[in-house]
């Protein structure tokens, strides 16, 4: 047999990386996941700053999907988007924004940072389950990137 060209390891469950300062929102998310019998690993950061630190310290196993709140202490969601897109090692991250903000400027700023989707939090239980269902379908269907090495300095020159 010819050697495999695939560099992908066997398919792994995507990690859900929740970046949200509100405990109840996180509880709600976890409840919805368990209702839908989704057993993906869930990791949480309380603001953008903490999320960046965890990502840079490699504490979030790839492949992962980031569920990002916008309004948080220290580093908010939009600032987090700027930071992560400017980080060569993390720029490919798949990010959904999960927020209460219906403000157009937030929505547009978020999509400018190439998010996968902008989802509103304030729908109650049933709609919220749909939202989670959507995210689940997403990671089941699409191929998520694994952790990739940042382009080396030499190749840039």
């Amino acid at each position, binding site marked *: 047999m010819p050697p495999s060209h695939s560099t992908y390891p066997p398919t792994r469950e995507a990690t859900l990386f929740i970046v949200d300062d509100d*405990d109840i*929102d996180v509880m709600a998310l976890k*409840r919805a996941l368990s209702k839908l019998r989704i057993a993906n690993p869930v990791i949480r950061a*309380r603001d953008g700053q903490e999320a960046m630190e965890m990502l840079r310290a490699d504490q979030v196993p790839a492949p992962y999907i980031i569920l990002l709140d916008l309004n948080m202490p220290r580093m908010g969601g939009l600032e987090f988007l700027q930071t992560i897109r400017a980080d060569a090692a993390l720029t490919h991250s798949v990010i959904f924004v999960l927020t*209460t903000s219906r403000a157009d400027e937030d929505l547009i700023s978020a999509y400018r940072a190439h998010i996968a989707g902008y989802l509103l*939090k304030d729908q*109650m239980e049933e709609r919220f389950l749909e939202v989670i269902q959507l995210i689940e379908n997403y990671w089941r269907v699409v191929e998520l990137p694994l952790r990739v090495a940042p382009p080396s300095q030499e190749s840039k020159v």
Partner: protein
Amino acid sequence: LNALMAAGVMALPLVTLFIAAHRITSRGCNLERKHQTGEAGLILRMQSVGDTLLNRIHLGVWELDLVDQTTTRTSGHDRIFGYETLLPLWNHDLFLTHVVPEDRGEVDRIYQKALVEQAEWRIECRIRRADGVVRWILAVGAPQLDSHGLACRLAGIIQDITERKHQADQFRQVVEMSPFGLLEIDAQGCIGMVNQSLENMFGYVRAELIGQPVDVLLPQRLRAAHMQHRGTFMASPATRKMGSDQVLLARRKNGDEFNVEIGLSPMSTGQSLRVLASIVDISERVRAQQLLSAQRKELLRSNEELSTFAYVASHDLKSPLRGIGQLSQWIEEDLAAGNGAAVADHMRLLRSRLKRMENLLDGLLAYSRAGKSDDSLGPIDVRQVARELFNLQAPPASMQLVVADDLPAFTTLRTPFELVLRNLFSNAIKHHDQSPQGHIDLSGQPLSNGYYEFSVRDDGPGIPVLYQERVFGMFQTLRPRDEVEGSGMGLALVKKVVETYGGTVGIDSDGVRGCCIRFSWPLTLERK
């Protein structure tokens, strides 16, 4: 000839010439004109055109022989008094009867004095002509001395100067009635003329200004610079606005300073250079502009605040509300599942969200009111007030406040000042990471601009430079509210209040240990 008249008595030798010509003809020296040569011929020829020319400029020439009291005059002389042909007789008394009664005494006094002193005279007065019309005349004259040095004749010129007088009057009225302050200076910067508006504007009467250096109208500190500017202008004088775009300052007699706009027009009148400055008091306009720009700034700020309000209402206020909705649903599910333990937990969380909501609303309300209630002007001793406010925060017993000895006692708006200190203390206590241990210092120093800078320094975790700007925003917290309950309005409130009274707020912290928040507060405040 006009120039000669302006020179006044200097024209007397010419007068003598005309008189001589007249004397020749009036005494019947029948000399044939065409045969005349030399001086006598010139005199005669001049006489033939002289009368016409003299009449054209309303000039009359006369001579009085003091021995026989007879007078010789040109026809123009009598015409000035309204007589088409020469009167048979003319003398000083007859002249005086033509002078209007108001001027008569003074005219005679000057004339008699000149006679006694054998000196020249110059009079401007009004006469009533034969046709009853009042006219202005200029009369100049001088005695002529005989070989013994005694006056034997008087000679003089009179001129009808009514037109010139009217023009001068008109000019004077234009100058006097001008709404602009008008000021004339010479090349050395000495004041030559001022008008009524200028007197009113600066609070001087003109006698105090004429002959003075123009710098008296300037604030002391600007005089040296002005002297330089004046030199530059005098070197290449041109009509222009003074100071181009900057706001000029002038000084009234009472020392008050005010804003002016000044136009400069060089006037060269043949002699030395003079400059006419027209001055407008624009302090009202400047005040109005300042008010307008202050209002504009306030409007921009309040618009900004409004849009921030809308934004935070959709984020920060909604968040606990959504939590409450969520929790109520879970409680319903817990009850259905008979999970009593979970119900208690969820109820506790629900109440914490209600409390948070209340805090946020309180913060929002306090923020929107900040800087609006200022009815509490009163004396405060900062050291005492600081201790009271600190104790009101119910700090842990081992948390210490050190108040500097030199803090002022002053009269200010008590409520907003206390609000600022209270929020700073409460922050320092609440966010201290070594609580119950901790030190908080309150110190300060006077600034040069009439403000006092207070510093609240703690030895807590500090605020990293990265977040130092953002902590002054509404509802900004550095830690999740689930960890440290707080509205995130404290520093926003402090900033708004301090800036309302013209002060500034700043942070000194390395984000590792300790934080110092400085704010400046006016030492004198007036009730709005």
